């Protein structure tokens, strides 16, 4: 009998414990209601700024400024990088529930989607990713003045800042455009904790690139090893009203769990971008070197003024001796195979892992069905104790096509044979043209431009 009573007691206790019908309500509304109300709030916030928003938009490699205004389910956009600042494009947008509130620019906007439209692989300026920006964003936080977004696909962090009603879009985009120009310089020097960061670093292409050489120390170093290593990183940057900021903070300490370097303010007098983040001692100085040093540090391609594939073939801005070199290449290497030299350019090596050279000399030929690219490598150095002389050396074949164009190599060899060259540029701030005249034989001269 006792056993039965105890059994009943245990059973009843267990069942009563498991049967607590009341739950403490943490929220006043259901999850669905809260999300719905959240979405409504976000739409009201977006459309609540009568003059729209300034948007920091990050692509795969750089950041830029776009103006956006939301009204009645439509979004109007304007930028200055891909289109003229006075152009606008209208499309539709929605805020939807997709694992959280998501702002989606869900019909094509000529300006906004220019940063995400995929490009045919092999196209001269991209791949199938296009520029790699997002057009769907998870809303991470929002207020009347600022909305923080994270791209749904590429997960890039973007920010909307409320545009003052008293400022026109043209004024704002103009200010950003000015800062964009201020960021540009031929070279940069990065100073961290008062010391020059060794190596080469730049802000070109709205990307902060740091190639820092770091001494190898410690027990791992044995005799004969390299004494320094290259530590590289890059961060997209976006112009701000004061200077620029990186997409995410970075650090010069590799094991820093909380990097803090992100915001820079421009000082036009000292040509410096000074980090404004608390506790950080860093600034970046714009440097305007003489022409020979600037060319030694180019991060662009510069083109010869020629096109034998044009309806009226031409080879301009070069001496007759150089024209003859190109004609020889055309006659011997291209004409027998129905090819025409379409473009020739020289400049930096964008992919050192692919092309084993310091700099590249590139020829592109065209045929009725396509074309070929032949690439040669070379080195160039500023002649010591001069500010207007460079010396070319070390011409090599940098891709498999190069071997089919001995005339192309001959042009590179002329660069070496007639070195040193006197070099000049059209302006020191952002050189668009370089002119070369051989110091050995003045009949050899040429100009290249962006």
């Amino acid at each position, binding site marked *: 009998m006792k056993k039965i009573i105890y059994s009943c007691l245990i059973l009843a206790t267990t069942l009563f414990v498991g049967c607590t019908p009341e739950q403490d309500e943490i929220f006043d509304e*259901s999850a669905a209601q809260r999300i719905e109300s959240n979405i409504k709030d976000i739409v009201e916030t977006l459309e609540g700024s009568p003059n729209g928003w300034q948007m920091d938009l990050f692509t795969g490699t750089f950041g830029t400024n776009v103006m956006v205004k939301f009204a009645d389910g439509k979004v109007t956009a304007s930028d200055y990088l891909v289109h003229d600042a006075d152009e606008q494009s209208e499309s539709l947008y929605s805020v939807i529930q997709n694992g959280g509130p998501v702002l989606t620019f*869900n019909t094509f906007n000529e300006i906004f989607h220019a940063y995400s439209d995929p490009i*045919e*692989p092999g196209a001269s300026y991209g*791949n199938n*990713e296009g520029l*790699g920006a997002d*057009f769907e964003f998870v809303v991470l936080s929002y207020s009347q003045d600022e909305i923080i977004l994270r791209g749904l696909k590429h997960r890039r962090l973007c920010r909307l800042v409320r545009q003052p009603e008293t400022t026109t879009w043209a004024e704002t985009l103009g200010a950003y455009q000015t800062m964009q120009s201020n960021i540009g310089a031929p070279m940069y020097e990065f100073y961290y904790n008062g010391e020059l960061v060794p190596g080469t670093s730049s802000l070109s292409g709205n990307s902060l690139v740091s190639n820092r050489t770091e001494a190898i120390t410690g027990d791992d170093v044995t005799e004969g090893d390299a004494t320094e290593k290259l530590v590289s990183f890059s961060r997209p940057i976006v112009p701000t009203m004061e200077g620029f900021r990186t997409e995410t903070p970075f650090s010069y300490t590799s094991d820093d769990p909380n990097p803090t370097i992100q915001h820079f303010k421009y000082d036009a007098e000292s040509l410096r971008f000074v980090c404004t983040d608390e506790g950080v001692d860093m600034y970046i100085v714009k440097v305007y070197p003489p022409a020979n040093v600037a060319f030694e540090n180019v991060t662009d391609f510069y083109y010869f003024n020629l096109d034998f594939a044009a309806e009226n073939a031409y080879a301009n801005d070069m001496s007759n001796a150089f024209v003859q070199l190109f004609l020889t290449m055309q006659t011997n290497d291209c004409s027998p195979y129905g090819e025409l030299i379409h473009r020739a350019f020289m400049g930096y090596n964008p992919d050192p892992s692919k092309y084993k050279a310091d700099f590249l000399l590139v020829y592109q030929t065209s045929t009725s069905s396509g074309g070929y690219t032949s690439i040669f490598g070379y080195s160039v150095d500023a002649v010591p104790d001069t500010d207007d002389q460079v010396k070319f050396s070390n011409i090599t074949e940098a891709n498999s096509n190069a071997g089919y164009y001995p005339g192309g190599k001959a042009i590179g060899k002329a660069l070496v044979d007639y070195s040193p060259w006197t070099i000049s540029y059209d302006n020191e701030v952002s050189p668009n043209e370089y002119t070369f005249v051989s110091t050995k034989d003045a009949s050899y001269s040429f100009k290249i431009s962006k």
Partner: protein
Amino acid sequence: MKILKYILLLGIVSIFASCSEDSLDSESIFKDEKTTPNALDTWLSDNYTSPFNIRFNYRYVDIESDREYNLVPAEYDKSVALAKIIKYLWLDAYVEVTANADPSFMQTYCPKVIQLIGSAAWNDDGSRILGQAEGGLKITLYEVNAIDLNNINVETMNDLWFHTMHHEFAHILHQNKLYSTDFKLITGSTYNSAGWTDYSNTDAHHLGYITNYASSEPNEDFVELVSMYVTHTEAWWQAMLADAKQAQISASAYASYANGGTKLPDNASLKTVTGQDAEGNDVTLYYLYYGGDEKIKQKFEIVTKYFINSWGFKLSDLRDIVQRRSESLDSLDLTSL
């Protein structure tokens, strides 16, 4: 003891009875996205959703899109045009041809989601996807932003979209009603699921297939016959059959094949035709004879019988309707709703 059992039972029942739940919330946690309908939304509701239960997504919908690719949405104006063209050239063509046999044909069998994408879906090797269909339920059409609203070209649209739409819809039909197994026997030994990309369309014609993709497997062969037939004119069809039959070669090439200097393709034989030219001179024409036209005709006869017997309409009637509508596409207002 019995009393104790009853007490125990009563206790358990009471306890469970006291454990009733609150009534369910009448509101579903899954909400439809609420946007104020614009002119296109209303038009789509009237022309796609209400009559056919089709959801026409002209807006980019993340979960309906292939995230493997980098894509952008379709332009609004071009979506308006394509929505009207698809209805006129595809949806209403089937409605018209099945009006007598089965007025609810399209309501029953049409895919339930059409998703537009503005850009191409580029693969790393430079190839691109024009359209995709998933399980007969959804069709995705890419490159909508490539439409030139000032120069609507039916041939381009057939290549980009309508060939895919007829192709995928034919899959839905044969999955609902099977076609004769005799079809698979006609070119049964040469289907090549792994190597069909090695063939050109002319190679495929010679083997008895209407396209190279048709040679991948019998079901694709069947639906390619349907889609290529419906989207092309009779003149194109006859030219394709002529290409499938034989290829003209020079006298010297003929001699080289004849004397073994050049190896004859496995599926070809040599053939000459003598006659007179326009000036009355005797001439001999030399051919590599493949006979692919006969195989295509045999298969196509099964296809046409299938549509009559299974669905109650002639495929030639559908083609006539599609061609008639294609020719009058210029008169369609593609901008106003």
